[in-house]
């Protein structure tokens, strides 16, 4: 018995060594994915677990649903959510504008590249820069109003960012100005890749500009426009912090006229020092975006299967 054991080992050992070397040579996927996986798990996995935990606690003690009760009854949270909701109205405007821009660029024979760059430029500009520059232009005595006054439109020279009834709409206009470039590029890229035959056939049959694009182009662009709509909806619900922070010096003012859910979270955590409430609000925001994420995944899947049929 004692003698057989070593011989068994001697037989199996080379096999083990062989397996190890072949594993190093044919390293297998996990070795390659590991660094990235670690990073993603720390940033997303840890955070989301910790977020859920924090939202049920107060200063380390378990408080059940108290945080949720506090956040959901906070009038400021309602205001913030309502503002995000209002911002969602920019999404259809963005979709229509981008479609129009894309079609117009598509029909432009000369200088398309130049116009495309011009439409797209705002999208790459840093939001802090955009915010500061517009903030200056739109002051009560800023460049826009002095131009309006010089042209005689005194009644149009509004206090664009200082008037609580006005500030959120001014901000939406700036967001539209910046985001429309993204949609235009997306739709235009798809438009260029469409088969030309149907368009030409319709044109020969005498379809006018509007009919042509409404009946022929638009249906074919549906997936990409839908993708853009969902993408922008996510932006309006959860990525507008930068605009608001920069243009209102981090206050969401005038008054609370431009407080959005992200700013609410930021302020709860870092100005009011109640990270638990911020975590709760963040969790609610995550759940809200989850709805959009599901839609996003569905479109992704559809476009994939659509491509495999082609």
């Amino acid at each position, binding site marked *: 018995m004692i003698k057989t054991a070593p011989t068994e080992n001697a037989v199996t050992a080379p096999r083990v060594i062989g397996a190890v070397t072949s594993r190093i040579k044919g390293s297998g996927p996990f070795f390659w994915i590991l660094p990235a996986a670690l990073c993603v798990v720390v940033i997303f996995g840890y955070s989301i677990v910790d977020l859920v935990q924090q939202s049920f606690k107060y200063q380390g003690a378990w408080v059940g649903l108290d945080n949720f009760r506090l956040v959901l009854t906070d009038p400021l949270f309602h205001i913030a959510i309502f503002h995000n909701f209002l911002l969602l109205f920019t999404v259809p405007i963005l979709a229509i504008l981008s479609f129009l821009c894309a079609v117009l660029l598509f029909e432009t024979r000369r200088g398309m590249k130049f116009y495309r760059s011009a439409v797209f430029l705002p999208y*790459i500009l840093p939001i802090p820069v955009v915010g500061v520059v517009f903030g200056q232009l739109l002051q009560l005595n800023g460049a826009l109003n002095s131009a309006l006054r010089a042209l005689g439109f005194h009644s149009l020279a509004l206090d664009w960012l200082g008037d609580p009834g006005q500030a959120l709409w001014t901000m939406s206009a700036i967001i539209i100005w910046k985001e429309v470039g993204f949609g235009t590029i997306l739709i235009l890229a798809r438009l260029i890749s469409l088969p030309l035959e149907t368009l030409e056939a319709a044109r020969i049959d005498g379809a006018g500009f509007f009919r042509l694009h409404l009946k022929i182009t638009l249906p074919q662009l549906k997936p990409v426009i839908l993708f853009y709509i969902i993408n922008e909806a996510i932006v309006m619900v959860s990525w507008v912090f930068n605009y608001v922070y920069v243009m209102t010096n981090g206050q969401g003012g005038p008054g609370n006229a431009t407080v959005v859910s992200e700013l609410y979270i930021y302020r709860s955590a870092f100005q009011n020092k109640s990270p638990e409430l911020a975590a709760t609000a*963040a*969790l609610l925001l995550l759940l809200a975006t989850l709805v959009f994420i599901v839609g996003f995944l569905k479109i992704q899947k559809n476009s994939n299967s659509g491509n495999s049929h082609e």
Partner: protein
Amino acid sequence: MITGSLKTQEQFLKSPWSIPTHLSFGGYKAAWNDQFPTWFRNSLLVTLVAVALTVIMAATAAWGFSHWKWKGRDSVLGILISLMVVPPVVLLIPLFTLGARLGWISTFRMLILVYVGLMLPFSIYLLTNFFRAIPASLMEAAEIDGASDIRTFTAIVLPLSGPPLITLAVVNLLWAWNELLLALVFLQSDEKKTLMVGITGFQSRYSLSIPTIMAGMTIATIPLVIVYIFGQRYFITGLTAGSVKGE
């Protein structure tokens, strides 16, 4: 913005829209004499390191996703895609507590780690799609010739992947350079601020000198415009790749 930066305050107040008659670089001097050089350097450091790490890690991971078939691979990719749309503000509080526990607040490594984590899902997704399109026969040939996985990757896959790697770098460079919220929270000491955080506070400090503000904004935008001009083609492919595959 650029015309505004080249005027003096009096000129600007008199005629904000006109083209400056004689150039005044006072705004630039004032902006540059402030902490602009430090902020600029910080932004450059954080952005370059984060993007380099992301591209390397995403490339190896994408290789792991595309070269081998393993159980649960598609579900993992599905989760990755949905992570692309998780808003950063959701991660802010847990990561801040983590950073505070580690004593990493106001360190570049914390911000870089967060940036890398946030950029990875999109990056892996983009590269996986690309690697899958590389003909399998190339890889098989290499394997028959006895090349290891590492050699197949470095000698065949990477040299073929120039354009998508540049695309990825350009898209991520612009994102990291423009990012405000996380930089604001994780880099709190004044000498560690990035350019975007710097100029946000800059506005209130120089509210009396519009040319200085405009000069600062111009400085902050120049690197982007350079990257954009050289990488426009790649940038557009990168953005559209997220929406409709296989174009």
